[in-house]
């Protein structure tokens, strides 16, 4: 099937691709509602696996830099993801890492607590709902009587997009909010893009957009949301002892989660000056946790207090483990 030719060479040529992703970014692109009509008025979408039946070989056949803007979502989990990242990089003028997975590794990044072997073990061998007596796990190639069948290689470590190719812009969020996407599209169409490497979102944290009132940042203990008998509907969640990644997370999402009375989990990734989103939150949180009574607490009480933070890795590095200072658990 021939690739759809652009009727109007003046139109922007766009591509969308999903690597290791959940598909939410695809939906998010549609969440801009009617604005999608404005998009197709000025742009042709050349490649969008979820919606258009363009093949890889069609992209490979293109000349370098023939795609104006490629929105790449999803993390780099397999050799196919890496191949497509490199391919689309060479064929695109502008490559945008779309969504938390491409930006910082995202949820798939949490698999960096394990290795391929451990992931396969749970997925294919050792779980209650699998019957796999011959212990078959995916292989990169297998010879059958018809010839050789191949599968992409499943890497031990998940990477963000910029860890395999040069990325021009980032749209943070899981998924990016419709406002951010709209804004990004307008910026592209009007050719007002900021310097390369920029994140197309505000540099302030989620707190800036959050409805809750902030008083003083002193917490006497950490609670899970269900442990709080009555959540004060007006007060900062962190100040109520509920871990909220808001202060450590880039805004632009209109604090949607907070508006629904749920704490921020950090999907916007780190704020501009932060080298490591999780480390910053660890420092900040530990600084104010127990600060009122710190002179009175003995060693044991301090330890018990900190123990209440059950899963630092999952809490503070939920979306950004692959791009953190230490990007994975030590390989066994």
């Amino acid at each position, binding site marked *: 099937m021939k690739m759809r030719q652009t009727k109007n060479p003046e139109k922007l040529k766009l591509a969308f691709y999903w690597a290791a992703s959940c598909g939410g970014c695809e939906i998010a692109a549609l969440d801009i509602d009617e604005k999608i009509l404005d998009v197709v008025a000025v742009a042709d979408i050349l490649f969008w696996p979820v919606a258009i039946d363009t093949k*890889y070989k069609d992209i490979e056949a293109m000349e370098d830099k023939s795609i104006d803007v490629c929105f790449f979502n999803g993390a780099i989990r397999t*050799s*196919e993801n*890496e*191949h497509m990242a490199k391919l689309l990089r060479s064929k695109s003028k502008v490559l945008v890492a779309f969504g938390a997975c491409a930006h910082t590794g995202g949820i798939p990044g949490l698999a960096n*607590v394990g290795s391929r072997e451990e992931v396969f073990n749970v997925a294919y061998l050792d779980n209650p709902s699998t019957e796999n007596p011959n212990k078959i796990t995916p292989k990169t190639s297998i010879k059958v009587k018809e010839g050789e069948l191949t599968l992409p*290689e499943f*890497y*031990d*470590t998940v*990477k963000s997009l910029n860890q*395999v190719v040069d990325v021009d812009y980032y749209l943070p969020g899981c998924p990016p909010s419709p406002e951010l996407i709209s804004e990004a599209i307008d910026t592209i169409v009007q050719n007002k893009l900021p310097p390369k490497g920029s994140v197309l979102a505000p540099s302030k944290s989620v707190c800036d957009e959050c409805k809750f009132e902030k008083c003083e940042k002193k917490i006497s203990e950490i609670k899970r949301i269900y442990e709080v008998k009555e959540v004060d509907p007006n007060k900062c969640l962190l100040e109520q002892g509920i871990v909220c990644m808001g202060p450590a997370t880039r805004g632009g999402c209109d604090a949607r989660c907070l508006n629904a009375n749920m704490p921020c989990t950090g999907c916007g990734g780190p704020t501009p000056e932060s*080298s*490591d989103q*999780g*480390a*910053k939150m*660890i*420092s900040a*949180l*530990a*600084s104010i*946790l*127990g*600060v009122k009574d*710190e*002179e009175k*607490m003995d060693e044991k009480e*301090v*330890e018990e*207090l*900190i123990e209440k*933070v059950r*899963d*630092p*890795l999952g809490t*503070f590095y939920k979306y950004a483990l692959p791009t*953190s*200072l*230490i990007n*994975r*658990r*030590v*390989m*066994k």
Partner: protein
Amino acid sequence: MRKKVEYTQLIHEEKKHTKAQRMTDNFEPNIIAFLCNWCAYAGADLAGTSRIKYPPNMKSIRVMCSGRVDPAFILEALKNGADGILVAGCHPRDCHYQSGNYKAKRRILLLKKLLHQLGINPSRVRFEYISASEGQRFASAVTEFVDDLKKFGPNPLSGVA
């Protein structure tokens, strides 16, 4: 026909090789120490003026207070290959700036939990209370730490850029 892809992943075999190189009998751990100016650094100086000997594996960074030590510093040190990190501040209730040492303690406790989840031995980060008059204690703490690290082996991240 789709091209076979070059695998440019962090090759953990490379890591293993470097690790094997370092894990010989001659492994000398590299320790970064954050010492607070008023207590721990002064204690370390006292060990010096008293000529108390300890192994040369520790390199110190003077900060005014252990409360200055950001967990990100410790992660950076580990990422860059340090085998152990020592953070030493004043004893509880004696912090020159009232409460910096309490913050340091809490931050490091939380950081250790994270290190454990990352498969890094949390004992590679050691938090000590050392006063300005505890020269001997300082020397002993460093000596003990070097011995411990020799048992733990080299930083498992070493070899990783």
